[in-house]
């Protein structure tokens, strides 16, 4: 048991699985000698060598394309795309092949590959380095879309993703990479993909979030309790797609109110699907309209306006209080 930040926890997941299974290899830009621009693959090159930790040419489609081939051959490639803003270069490979080869070969092949990529705002980054476009991947049949929210679940989910027989795109909230530490067990730990988690119990309003947004949401929970006596129930999706709505629906049946929080642009974003599921499955339990606290439908601004763009604790508090009005 050690106190690790998310970067270290992700590193641990890969290191341990690579020690155990030599089908697991890493490939990407600067993942080897440099250890990754965020150091997530730090020292893996030293331990496993260039055959297993491959610095590739600068070509995202190439990285994922060859990883698909490796996965079909029986390996477990873990690709890094340096920023999710550059993951659109791989979209055709993921949609047309990673997500379909099981079906196209009618079960003969599977594509157990993982694409890790840092996403999200809050780090005063350059253009294309702050986006949250998980909805693109979540809307793609045959792909799994996972986003952890803390060191411990990041490690456990990444391990599960590597072992999963299907392709997983794994968005890492870069704002949380070094934001805090958690106890992470030394022995391996997995978490099932596809299962949201109850992050905090409450009876008044259900708040659904994931990734870096769990941070302001949990802060809002404290503030709501302390200042307003409001107890929110917080659900951490962890797997965005395929979306298991059981826990959310059960929670809203209890609270009758809901707020969805994400950094992604609002329209056609993940929040819409949560709302749709609740309309379909908990309509008669809803007391007031579900609220969305999200990014705006605009180009992500540079650092000076980033704080104004991002959902934050106050916006969550405000939305929760609104669902309690009426």
């Amino acid at each position: 048991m050690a106190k690790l930040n998310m970067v270290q926890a992700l590193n641990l997941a890969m290191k341990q699985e690579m020690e155990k299974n030599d089908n697991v290899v890493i490939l990407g830009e600067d993942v080897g000698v440099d250890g990754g621009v965020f150091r997530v693959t730090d020292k893996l090159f030293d331990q496993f060598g260039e055959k297993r930790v491959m610095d590739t040419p600068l070509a995202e489609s190439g990285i994922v394309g060859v990883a698909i081939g490796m996965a079909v051959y029986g390996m477990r490639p873990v690709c890094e795309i340096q920023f999710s803003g550059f993951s659109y270069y791989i979209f055709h490979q993921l949609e047309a092949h990673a997500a379909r080869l099981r079906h196209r070969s009618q079960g003969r092949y599977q594509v157990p590959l993982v694409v890790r990529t840092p996403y999200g705002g809050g780090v005063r980054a350059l253009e294309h380095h702050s986006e949250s476009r998980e909805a693109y991947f979540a809307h793609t049949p045959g792909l799994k879309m996972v986003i952890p929210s803390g060191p411990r679940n990041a490690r456990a989910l990444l391990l599960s993703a590597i072992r999963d027989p299907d392709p997983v795109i794994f968005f890492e909230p870069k704002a949380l990479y070094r934001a805090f530490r958690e106890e992470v067990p030394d022995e391996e730990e997995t978490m099932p993909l596809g299962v949201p988690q109850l992050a905090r119990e409450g009876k008044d309003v259900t708040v659904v979030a994931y990734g870096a947004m769990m941070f302001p949401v949990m802060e809002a929970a404290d503030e709501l309790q302390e200042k307003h006596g409001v107890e929110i129930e917080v659900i951490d999706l962890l797997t965005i797609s395929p979306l298991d709505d059981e826990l959310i629906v059960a929670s809203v049946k209890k609270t009758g109110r809901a707020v969805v929080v994400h950094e992604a642009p609002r329209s056609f974003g993940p929040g819409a699907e949560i709302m749709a599921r609740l309309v379909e499955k908990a309509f008669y339990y809803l007391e007031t309209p579900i609220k969305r606290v999200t990014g705006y439908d605009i180009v992500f601004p540079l650092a000076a306006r980033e704080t104004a763009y991002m959902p934050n604790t106050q916006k969550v508090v405000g939305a929760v209080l609104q669902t309690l009005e009426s």
Partner: protein
Amino acid sequence: MPRKEIELPYRIEYLSILDADGNVDKELEPDMPDDLLLKLFKAMLAGRRFDERMLHLQRQGRIGTFPPIKGQEASQLGAVAALEAADWMVPAFRETLAEIWRGKPMENFLLYYAGYDEGSKVEDDRNDLPISVPVGSQMLHAVGIAMAMKYKAQPQVAMTFFGDGATSEGDFHEALNFAGVFQAPVVFVCQNNQWAISIPRAKQTHSKTLAQKAVAHDIPGIQVDGNDVLAVYSAAREAVERARKGDGPTLIECFTYRMSLHTTADDPKKYRSEEEVKEWEKRDPISRFAAYLKTKKLLTDEAVEKLEAEIAKEVQDVVDQAEQLMKEEVDPADMFHHIFAELPPTLVEQREEMLRDSSLGKKEVDHG
């Protein structure tokens, strides 16, 4: 402080062994056992006949759109004939004959083009990928497979096919570049059939040959007469050996011709002349190979006739069998198979919703 030419490590060559009349260049003639030669001939002929039959079935509405292969038999077969069974083949979508040579049941083509997903099943004993429709995207998979072979120190090679049009896609170059950097045991076989639907080769790229695109990545490239099965086989064997020895990738450009339609939805009269097609008919890969085999006394007119009869029966059996399979009950809910290893809750629900759907019955599986 000079202005001087830089020496590049590879030169681009052109290879031709058997001319359009079946005359062979004795110095270049590959050493091939008689039974392999005959097997290749039979496969080429069967490929041509099966293709004709598919076109007929399509015109009758018994199967849907498909891409004919007429004219490209030598270029497909010459290449795959250089592979071992344990090697891997990664096709585009016009490698019907290469896939048949590798063991794909002919009836699967009929199933597939009649709209049954079952038709693209890959059998357990065949190391090939199913066809890939998005142009240019599959070469990278072959490179990845080859990198995995190298990683696992397997004495295997991956071969991938693609058209002249595919060389314009960025993924083609990414594949060559990765193959070069990782010295992957992969053979790139370009079926330059002169057309990408209506776009002639000259408008596809300003470059004189497609083979020279290998220069960009410092890998060997060669252009061969793609209607000459001996040349294709020789170049492929050389490339496969190079790869197997650990000496890295090769790009082979087979200079051939799509004698038929792009697909059955296409009308080539809109964009190319009858004369051009006639010119290429004179360079047919099958007749010149037959002439060569006859000169070698490996084939007679009677033997060809016998072969034709055998093939006709074989093709008819395949058609009968496929149509039988299509008549069997096909559960529409099978479309939920093979999406994930395990069906997640949302898909379980959607599948149930579909089964409940009153508008749906066996009739909804739409036969051909």
